[in-house]
């Protein structure tokens, strides 16, 4: 068993309460966006992190890179204690860990050409002499499947898929080992989404990259992930090797999430597990198991309402946070 490249233990991030604006409106209590999340990712492996909007998955991704400052927990990436780094050290460490966002349009400077956007990190990190940069940019473009002629384009002249390729190229320019991919294909059309997913898989193989792949779409995650972790209201509720999670989930939320994904086959007779209601507000998470108000488990009982189930191992490499996780789901 090789040592993990990324290990995160007890990660927590709370966003502070917002006071009332000069006495108008209601004040908002603090929200625990991430509440004790732990995971590891092996070198050149992909952990898929899935969950619905507001579950805290993006905050996890950003906290790991300290793009938002976590409140607690330890983060190790490639042997570096990320939380212990000072400002200058953190900046240096960013060479090893990068992020790709959902909307590359928001992530790219509209006044910079593709060439400038890709050369900038090389200059900042002094990775290439000015003369060398242009050649490196061309190589990066080729690696992400873009013609060298795109180098002179501005972001608005590119399609969504092309912009995402530039976003990926920019992240790769500093030769990181670890990439956080935050909904990297959610904004793309199906035919383009497949292209970008295939590109990410190829890059991982070629460069030995380690991915934290954050997405709401379980079918997309299935294409790339070795392991999958499911989040609900700021916590992990299940984690397992991908094949196990998709075939035999142990948490009723995972099962319901899987059953809700539409399958492009009109003859499919999958039964949907209906989930009543909306995800609860993270400002006022329910007591006990945070999923209990929506949980369809037939054995749901008083304990679910009062006692929060711990994340525990139910099989080798498979953990779930449900009082009934030791038994297969009915």
């Amino acid at each position: 068993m090789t040592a993990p490249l990324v290990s995160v233990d007890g990660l927590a991030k709370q966003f502070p309460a917002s006071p009332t604006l000069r006495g108008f409106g209601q004040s908002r209590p603090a929200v625990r966006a991430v509440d004790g999340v732990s995971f590891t990712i092996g070198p050149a492996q992909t952990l898929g992190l899935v969950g619905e909007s507001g579950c805290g998955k993006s905050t996890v991704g950003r906290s790991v890179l300290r793009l938002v400052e976590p409140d607690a927990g330890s983060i190790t990436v490639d042997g570096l204690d990320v939380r212990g780094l000072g400002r200058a050290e953190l900046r240096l460490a960013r060479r090893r860990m990068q992020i790709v966002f959902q909307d590359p349009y928001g992530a790219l400077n509209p006044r910079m050409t593709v060439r400038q956007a890709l050369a900038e990190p090389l200059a900042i990190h002094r990775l290439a002499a000015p003369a060398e940069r242009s050649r490196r940019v061309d190589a990066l473009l080729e690696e992400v499947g873009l013609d060298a002629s795109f180098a002179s384009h501005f972001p608005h002249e590119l399609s969504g898929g092309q912009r995402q390729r530039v976003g990926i190229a920019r992240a790769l320019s500093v030769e990181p080992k670890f990439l956080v991919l935050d909904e990297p294909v959610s904004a793309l059309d199906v035919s383009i989404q497949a292209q970008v997913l295939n590109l990410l898989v190829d890059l991982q193989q070629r460069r030995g990259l380690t991915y934290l792949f954050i997405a709401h779409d379980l079918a997309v995650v299935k294409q790339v992930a070795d392991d999958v972790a499911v989040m609900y209201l700021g916590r992990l509720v299940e984690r397992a090797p991908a094949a196990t999670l998709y075939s035999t989930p142990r948490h009723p939320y995972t099962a319901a999430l899987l059953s809700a994904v539409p399958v492009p086959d009109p003859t499919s007779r999958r039964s949907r597990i209906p989930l009543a209601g909306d995800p609860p507000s993270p400002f006022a998470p329910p007591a006990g198991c945070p999923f209990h108000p929506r949980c369809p488990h037939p054995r749901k009982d008083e304990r679910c309402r009062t006692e929060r189930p711990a994340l525990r191992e139910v099989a080798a490499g498979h953990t779930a946070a449900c009082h009934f996780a030791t038994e297969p789901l009915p």
Partner: protein
Amino acid sequence: MSELLLRVRDLRTYFVTERGSGTARAVDGVSFDLYAGETLGVVGESGCGKTTTALSLLRLITEPPGHILPGSLIEFEGRNVLALPPRDLQALRGGEVAIIFQEPMTSLNPVLTVGAQIAETVIVHERASRRAARARTVELLQLVGIPDPAVRADAYPHELSGGMRQRVMIAMALACRPKILIADEPTTALDVTIQAQILELLDHLQDELGMAVLLVTHDLGVVAGAVDRVLVMYAGQVVEAAPTAELFSRPLHPYTEGLLASVPRLDTPRRRLPSIPGQVPSATAWPGGCRFHPRCPYAWERCRAEDPGLGDGDVTGPDTHVARCWLLVEPERRARPA
């Protein structure tokens, strides 16, 4: 055979773009029929013209820059929608034909309670009294599965979740018992568990109220589970039309074939996804000949030179399966992709 509600023939909606970069031919010759009680899916990727088609049906295109070209026909129960005087058009919108959009937050007025907004529809269209409109509002909120409808009627849009807001939009759309509900990506902004709830709700309401639904979506999974018949759009045109089961089991157009193959799915083992090479062309410069030919694995000279058309039979009959592709004329070419 159920009754024909809507007849669309050769619909063309163009936009004159700024800075003279040309005319965007967003919808470029779309024809279809919609029958009472059926669900017709319109599927395609961004920029294919599916939303512009939906908006054109109620003349919701902003003019300028948009305009529906002369020669286009939209006929609702025999009435020419494109020639309706403003008063009649207003009665049609939200009356017999209602529409819901992707983002309910931008469709709702943030400073009015949702109940007031639903009641307004009832008052305007049915000349109901305030009291009667209020009663109808609560009834509608109940119909769309909102708990405590009498209380929720007094909520402002921001106090509701995305799923609840979409239910409010549906309630408002149903206020006048429309014969047609146009749903433009109604679940795209919602989480998957909420999407499942809304799709189930639409299905149930349709059974109960017998309205026809035109469901516009990019999601083939949603189409597979929710509609009777599908139009696949590409580059402003319908490229394939078929009953849902037919389309998925026997796609005829290479675009449909490519789209179906490239969807990541849960029900099959992981494999490398086939993708469609290239990008969707720009609406100001659709390729000549067959518009899909630059991305098509089968394309040959004829595809570059001539538009194959959608076939000259009944374009959109409930059971017809048609595709805009020369492979239908020369099927032997399908065996050997270039």
